[in-house]
């Protein structure tokens, strides 16, 4: 099968969905020219009516999507960098998440939000922080994040066809990662985790760039420690069943997440496993997260953020 990049897979999903459904459109800043490759060139096929650049007016930009969704359209809003979603946070978290439920579940709000996130560019906190945990904290919004080009295409398609708001950031550290991606139409359903590697000694739950890091570590430990690796693929809804099934076998869990330790989604997983799988555990669930500091710029993110060394140490520790 052909291999394409993760960002190329996202672009393919956007283009195919826009072809399929006239109501799908894209709004962002400089998406016509394409700050990141996934929007570049879409203007040629879909024109200015469906590829919209706005001023640096995040609320107006997001409002374009929100209002159009209320009108029955299916907008995709591109925040460029994940942190920029915070500029219109009251709209894109609270107003969005409560829309369907609070109004008596009369109408849905099918807005897809996306943005580049994560470390690797040495740009520091406001350009490097994670946002999936923050959105997973606010009810009424589905949250997913791809770790492979295959998942990227499938998750974006599922997000665009979902009738709910979906935040689906992508990690800048793997935007050029290549992998096999079918040319056909397929979806990766939101809420279904994927066992990316079978193992028997310990389960590692990891997402996006950290999933790729975990795979490297598992290869390295091969023969010594047998590591099972699960990719949640979506945080909301979260596939607890796949995780607990794995724990029945391994009885040990390491959660790797680039979000902060304090209040990050890894904590929620750990707490749920405690409540729902306490008896399965031979060792405490261990988290490898961003320590509770703003993501430093310069060269520091390399050793401060979760990385293969930290993941390996956690695995060894939990298996000791």
């Amino acid at each position, binding site marked *: 099968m052909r291999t394409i990049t993760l960002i190329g897979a996202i672009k393919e999903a956007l283009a195919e969905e826009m072809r399929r459904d006239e109501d799908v459109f894209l709004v962002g800043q400089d998406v016509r020219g394409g700050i990141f490759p996934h929007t570049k060139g879409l203007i040629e096929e879909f024109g200015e*009516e469906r590829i*919209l650049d*706005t*001023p640096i*007016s*995040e*609320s*107006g*930009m*997001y*409002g*374009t*999507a*929100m*209002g*159009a*969704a*209320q*009108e*029955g*359209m299916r*907008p995709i809003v591109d925040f460029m960098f994940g942190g920029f979603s915070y500029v*219109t946070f*009251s*709209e894109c978290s*609270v*107003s969005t998440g*409560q*829309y*369907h*439920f*609070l*109004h*008596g*579940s*009369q*109408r*849905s*709000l*099918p807005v897809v939000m996306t943005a580049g996130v994560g470390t690797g560019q040495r740009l520091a906190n406001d350009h490097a922080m994670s946002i999936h945990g923050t959105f997973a904290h606010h*009810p*009424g919004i*589905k949250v997913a994040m791809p770790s492979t080009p295959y998942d990227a295409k499938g998750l974006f398609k599922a997000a665009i066809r979902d*009738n*709910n708001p979906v935040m689906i950031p992508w990690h800048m550290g793997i935007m050029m990662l290549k992998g096999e991606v079918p040319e056909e139409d397929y979806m990766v359903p939101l809420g279904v985790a994927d066992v990316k590697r079978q193992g028997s000694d310990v389960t590692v739950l990891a997402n996006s760039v950290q999933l790729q890091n975990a795979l490297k570590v598992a290869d390295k430990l091969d023969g010594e420690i047998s590591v099972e690796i699960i990719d949640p693929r979506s945080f909301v809804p979260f596939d607890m069943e796949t995780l607990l099934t794995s724990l029945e076998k391994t009885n040990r869990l390491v959660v790797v997440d680039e979000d902060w330790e304090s209040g990050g989604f890894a904590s929620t997983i750990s707490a749920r496993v405690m409540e729902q799988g306490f008896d399965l555990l031979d060792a405490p669930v261990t988290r490898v997260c961003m320590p509770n500091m703003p993501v430093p710029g310069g060269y520091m993110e390399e050793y401060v953020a979760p990385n293969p060394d930290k993941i390996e140490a956690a695995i060894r520790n939990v298996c000791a």
Partner: protein
Amino acid sequence: MSLTKEQKLTLFTNLVRADLYDKMMYRRMMQGKLIGFYHPIEGGVAPGVGACTFLNKDDNLNPHHRGHGMAHMISKGIDVRTFLAEHTGKETGCCKGRSAFHFSYPDHKVYQMSGFIGHNFAPCVGWGYAAKRRAQGQVVMNCSGDGSYGQGRAHEAMLMAQNWKLPIIFFCENNGMSIFSTAKEMHPTENISSLAQGFGMPAVVVDGQDVFAVAEVALAAIADARKGKGPVFIECKTERFTEHDIGTPDLAGWEDRTPAQHEDMRKREPVNLATERVLADKTLTQARIDAIREAALKEIEEVEAFADASEIARPSEEELLANVFAP
């Protein structure tokens, strides 16, 4: 544009209804028969009626939070029995009793009443975009207060509306107050609508106590917007006769608004003004006016009976959880 006799009749009827609906809400809140809060619209009832009476069903409306949008919604033809049911936490409420004051009538393109002031501005860009793309002449009537224009969101929406020539009417109901704060202190120019100049957007200031004057201006703006002439700003100078919301003191800054101030503003009570006008120009007789009032009171009685007869909404936690996401 001058109004037909029939148009005047409709406006007058809606004005009377809106005013009586507001008084019903006030009374019920004092009786402990409403949940959450209520922001009375007494004295400021004409702008919403003037803006909304001649909207089509498929025009978008952001109703002002004052009077919880009832003046606007009943004028647009929405049956608000389910509104009162919602405000009393009933199963029959327009949002199944879940929303407190966050009502929604999506079939009438009233999508939301945000709890965040100024959060009407962003989505109205999207409504305008959809209207423009569909090219069926829909307009967006975006009603909010003077205070809401403090939000940068107002700027962003005006900017984008003017860039894209969207059919949005920025309808500012300037009652000179934002809770305890006066527009005098909170906005540096005489008119909030001076903001429109920054975008080269046409603006008009109108006497907001005169429902007919408001309607004339609104009709012209609606017609222009339908033709694709782009956004327009309408500022209505109006009043808030009461405290901001029931239970809050009636202050300006940190001092009580004075009896003299009240007397002054109450000289131009919108229902009285309209009554004088329709009597003077012989649009209506006193008997007809009395009948309109009677009918409105009867309508409101039914609205109350409907809400009161409904069950309190008490879905189980599981049911609620199953309703967070759309299928």
